[in-house]
């Protein structure tokens, strides 16, 4: 909300430098987001927002046209002579279309040679300095200025014509200079939605009283039925008060310059005097008003005094609003109607048929209060935000309904020559409730942590216009002022006290209260441990969006008909999506059920300039619940909604050369299945997960024969392998292996063993023996290894596969697996005989169980 300081000064003295005032307001809850200096120097550096041209007091003046003569050499130009109360009139050339040859007496703005002004002929705001010059042979070193040249507005069609009473010779900075505060109004500051409201806060902060207009606090009440209008209200909750005044014989014209300047500075465009006055009262005093063309209402009532009926809309009812749009309404919209139908949307916008036009003679001025919830709903549905709707939407006190209307009517008398009908039409079925609040020094101490004497509390609250009903040594009973609809409890009063007392005056303390029982968060700590293990394995953590769209995730299935069942439905469950009702775009229309698609996007975008990606992400997916699936942390209130499950997943993507190419030799062969498997193994080892197994699977997103499931116990907790070439093509990834895996992190972390048992280390020498066995291609290496380990028992210290060989001279369909076996005993020196026997036993077992044939060793 824009608040000109010159307007504030109507209500309160500004006793502080503006920047200090802005800080005080901000600290008290009225955040000054920006300061705009108009024509006066800003104390801040050049270049920041809120700084603008300062009008030089020695060069730019309020002046008066002495005469306007034709230019001897140009038809479109004129020579003007201007006086500004110092010496001889100044002569210059102007092309302004709004002064004519022969004009004299107009008040204008004169800028002398050397003045710094904005260049009127350039886009935006570019500063120039007025130099001695001749225009078509006529000396012209000064200028009569346009609003654009002064930075008042973008207007450059003509020069400024100031009001007739503008004081000639006064520096313009003193006459039109200003600072505009741009204030953010939080919902608890509904009372500050006007210049007067901000002035009240300044008064409280600087120990002054505000200057209110005469009769402001007169509680005038009228009758619903008058000779010019009758007012009926269907539901007092929707419209607690509706008042109207009649102003006859208005003369519609432009409003005076001072009013136009104020409206512009507060951010509204001037329209005509009647409309401007309603806006002026709203901006200045916080009360939205609406002006009807009274004769249009009378015509709709067949020449009789109209009856205004405020009621909920009937379903499907329509009206053309004054922005020219035909709008349809539903039962929660509040309409202002007459016998013919709607003439306005309560508090939001009037109808076009009854709007004030250039021909309007008589004005019915509406001042009403509408239910703020209904107003907010209608504003959003009709997409009709306005200054009035914003103010109504935060709540406006109904006790202060008539005084602003009287003020506006009086302005119409002065500025539009109207005559105000003395009667007040006023229907006030629901008087405003004014609460009484009990505040104790104990409560101040308990919540704010400070000791405040009741007299000090009293002083603060009185500065905010609270009424003190009763005061004792340790308690007060107070009533908030009637313009405060936001204060209804002791907590609200504490906020008032601290905002005036000052947040900075509260001493910082350390919590003295008992420490709660410490429980730790195992799930988080394990998750962070998993991150560390994966980072140690060389992976970069990424975090992608939780949003996606169904087709994006479906791209993980190379063909549309490959519907799958368990365990292949991991990570692609056939569940309905958690769908967003108001998505930001079609690509972000649902919550993800799998991490991989968004991660593949990130891999693809990085691979445009990098040749390697090694990523992991740990995050939640969102699964609509199936029958029987429960959330253990659910509140009773949640049960009505079947909120989605949010399990944690881990996913990994690897692609590109194994090592980064450098100036020295490096292993730049593309990463393959076993790079990913190694990372998975490393992670399981690092997290001490027991009983993990890898089994070959067929999976729609993975390359056949290069896919595995990670199983713990009986359950599949993840799938990984090489991405299917058709899926890879869906992401337009480079044509080499992309390894992907997605894992149920909750299931994996549930199996970590924090208290794993450490094996003792032997002091005795080891015996190392190699064996190579020939087996059928189908025999899994894991099975051979398991048999060796099992047979070797406690004395077999380690088994390492060091070679896998196929091809000549081996028969086809066979492979050779070569292992290094390390034997060692914990309690004695192992003999070659012992080791030899064990080795023999292992070979026999392999021959028997997998048809192995000893090749060598």
């Amino acid at each position, binding site marked *: 909300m824009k608040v000109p300081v010159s307007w504030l000064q109507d209500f309160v003295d500004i006793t502080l430098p503006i920047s200090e005032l802005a800080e005080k307001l901000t600290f*008290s*809850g009225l955040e000054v987001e920006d300061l705009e200096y108009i024509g006066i120097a800003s104390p*801040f550096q050049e270049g*920041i927002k809120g700084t603008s041209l300062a009008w030089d007091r020695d060069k730019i003046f309020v002046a008066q046209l002495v005469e306007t003569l034709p230019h001897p050499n140009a038809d479109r130009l004129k020579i003007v002579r201007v006086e500004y109360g110092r010496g001889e009139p100044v002569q210059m050339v102007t092309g302004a279309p709004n002064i004519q040859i022969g004009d004299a007496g107009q008040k204008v703005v004169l800028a002398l040679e050397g003045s710094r002004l904005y260049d009127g002929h350039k886009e935006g705001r570019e500063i120039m300095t007025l130099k001695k010059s001749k225009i078509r042979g006529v000396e012209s070193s000064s200028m009569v200025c346009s609003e654009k040249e002064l930075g008042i507005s973008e207007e450059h069609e003509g020069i400024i014509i100031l009001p007739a009473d503008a004081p000639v010779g006064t520096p313009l900075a003193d006459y039109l200079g200003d600072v505009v505060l741009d204030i953010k109004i939080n*919902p608890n*500051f509904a009372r500050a939605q006007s210049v007067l409201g901000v002035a009240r806060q300044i008064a409280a902060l600087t120990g002054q009283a505000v200057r209110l207009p005469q009769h402001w606090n007169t509680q005038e009440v009228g009758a619903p039925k008058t000779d010019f209008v009758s007012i009926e209200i269907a539901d007092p909750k929707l419209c607690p008060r509706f008042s109207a005044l009649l102003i006859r014989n208005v003369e519609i014209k432009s409003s005076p310059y001072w009013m136009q300047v104020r409206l512009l500075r507060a951010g509204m465009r001037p329209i005509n005097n009647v409309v401007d006055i309603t806006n002026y009262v709203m901006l200045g005093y916080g009360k939205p008003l609406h002006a009807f063309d009274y004769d249009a209402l009378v015509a709709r009532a067949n020449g009789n005094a109209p009856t205004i009926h405020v009621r909920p809309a009937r379903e499907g009812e329509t009206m053309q609003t004054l922005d020219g749009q035909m709008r349809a309404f539903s039962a929660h919209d509040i309409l202002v109607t007459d016998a013919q139908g709607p003439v306005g949307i309560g508090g939001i916008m009037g109808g076009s048929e009854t709007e004030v036009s250039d021909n309007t003679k008589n004005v019915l001025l509406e001042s009403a209060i509408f239910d703020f*919830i209904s107003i*907010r*709903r209608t504003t959003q549905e009709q997409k009709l935000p306005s200054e009035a709707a914003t103010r109504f939407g*935060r709540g406006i006190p109904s006790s202060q309904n008539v005084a602003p209307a009287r003020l506006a009517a009086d302005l119409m008398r002065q500025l539009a020559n109207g005559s105000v009908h003395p009667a007040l039409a006023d229907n006030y079925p629901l008087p405003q409730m004014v609460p009484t609040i009990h505040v104790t020094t104990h409560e101040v101490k*308990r*919540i*704010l942590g*400070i000791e405040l004497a009741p007299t000090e509390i009293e002083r603060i609250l009185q500065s905010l216009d609270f009424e003190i009903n009763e005061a004792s040594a340790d308690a007060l009973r107070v009533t908030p002022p009637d313009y405060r609809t936001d204060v209804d409890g002791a*907590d609200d009063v*504490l*906020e008032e006290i*601290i905002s005036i007392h000052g*947040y*900075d005056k*509260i*001493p910082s*303390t*350390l*919590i003295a*209260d008992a420490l*709660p029982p*410490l429980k730790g968060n195992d*799930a988080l700590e394990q998750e962070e441990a998993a*991150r560390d293990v994966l*980072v*140690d*394995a*060389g*992976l*970069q*953590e990424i*975090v992608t*969006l*939780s949003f996606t769209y169904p087709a994006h995730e479906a791209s993980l299935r190379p063909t549309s008909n490959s519907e799958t069942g368990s365990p292949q439905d991991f990570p692609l469950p056939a569940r309905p999506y*958690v*769908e*967003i*009702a*108001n*998505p*930001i775009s079609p690509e972000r229309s649902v*919550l993800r059920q799998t991490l991989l698609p968004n991660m593949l996007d*990130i891999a693809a975008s990085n691979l445009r*300039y*990098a040749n390697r990606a090694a990523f*992991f992400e740990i995050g*939640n997916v969102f699964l609509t619940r199936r029958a029987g699936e429960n959330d253990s*942390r659910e*509140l009773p*209130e*949640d049960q009505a909604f079947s909120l989605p499950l*949010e399990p944690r997943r881990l996913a990994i993507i690897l692609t590109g050369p194994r*090592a980064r190419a450098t*100036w020295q030799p490096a292993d730049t062969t593309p990463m393959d299945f076993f790079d990913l498997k190694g990372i998975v193994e490393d992670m399981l080892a690092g997290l001490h997960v027991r009983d993990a197994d890898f089994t070959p699977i067929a999976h729609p997103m993975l390359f056949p024969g290069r896919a595995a499931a990670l199983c713990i116990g009986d359950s599949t907790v993840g799938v990984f392998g090489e991405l299917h070439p058709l899926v890879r093509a869906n992401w337009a990834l480079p044509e080499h292996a992309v390894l992907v895996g997605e894992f149920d992190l909750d299931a994996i972390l549930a199996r970590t063993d924090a208290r794993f048992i450490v094996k003792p280390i032997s002091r005795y020498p080891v015996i190392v023996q190699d064996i190579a066995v020939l087996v059928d291609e189908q025999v899994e290496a894991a099975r051979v290894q398991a048999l060796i380990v099992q047979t070797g028992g406690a004395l077999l210290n380690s088994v390492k596969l060091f070679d896998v060989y196929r091809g000549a001279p081996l028969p086809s369909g066979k492979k050779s697996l070569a292992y290094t076996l390390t034997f060692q005993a914990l309690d004695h020196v192992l003999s070659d005989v012992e080791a030899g026997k064990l080795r023999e036993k292992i070979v026999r077992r392999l021959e028997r169980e997998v048809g192995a044939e000893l090749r060598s060793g």
Partner: protein
Amino acid sequence: MNESAHELQARALAQLDSIWDNAQLNAWRIEYIGRKGAVNTLFEQINTLPKEERGAFGKTANEVKTTLENAFHAREGAIKQRELSEALEAEPLDVTLPGRRPARGRIHPATQTLREIYKIFGEMGFQVYRTRQVETDLVNFQLLNIPEHHPARDNWSTFYVAGSDQRVLLRPHTSPGQIRVMRENFPNPIRAILPGLCYRYEQISARYEIQFNQVEGLVVGHHITFGDLKGTLTEFARRMFGERPVRFYADHFPFTEPSAQMDVKCIICEGAGCALCKYTGWLEILGSGMVHPTVLRNGGYDPDVWSGFAFGMGPERITMLKHGITDIRYFWGNDLRFLEQF
């Protein structure tokens, strides 16, 4: 025998003088002082000499042997010394060539800041709680003292779940966790932080993302005051941003009253005014306040007996301030050129 022992010695030493090579040195050794070398041959001549000359000859031969052996060892040492010097001078590396860097992974910057926050509050006795991201309007708004159609709702541009009639939503802040933590912990006092992803309907720009982390804090006890709020958050700011002034002033949140904004003195300009702090000299870090009595009551705690404070901050914003990042889209863009700088 036509060469005297002294002549032999002179010849051998002259020859040795030019030897700077281990192979030649070895050949020299064999030739002169080896088992079948010239010195031993000299000793063999003794028997052919008259008895009276044998003593002197033997003495001379021994002297020659000792001289030559010493010369040999001296030269052997000198060659080693020269080889070492040569080796030390040979093939200096271009130490400006890049080193072999291990392929290290990194934690995402948002996670790094979250960890820093966990650590600071952890040391002050705060526990980490995480609660659900898909929330109900009831917990996210109504139980936090924000009734339906309340004007404060404008502050949260919320995504709603389809088919829920706006009763289920993506949490736009971590504050609903306050209710869940209170319900879980009653009647114990609480000192908790609640990190997690939040979502808002925003036009994505350098300043706004539709997804962001937030860390909520909640303290509930029997004697918790606004002074405690200031003390705790001042300590956090000191740990996170170093020794620099902080300030608290009025703000508004429906679930706290009174509410306060905390700023720290700008970490770039120290208050002089710069682009980072928009020439205010201060950086907005977090919003906070005393838990509203209605919220305490909705969490199960009697506001006449219990009091508390709450706060909320944005880890991405803190990361941006600390590292001069001007575009919030970098975080979920996950460009390696960004990530690898951390």
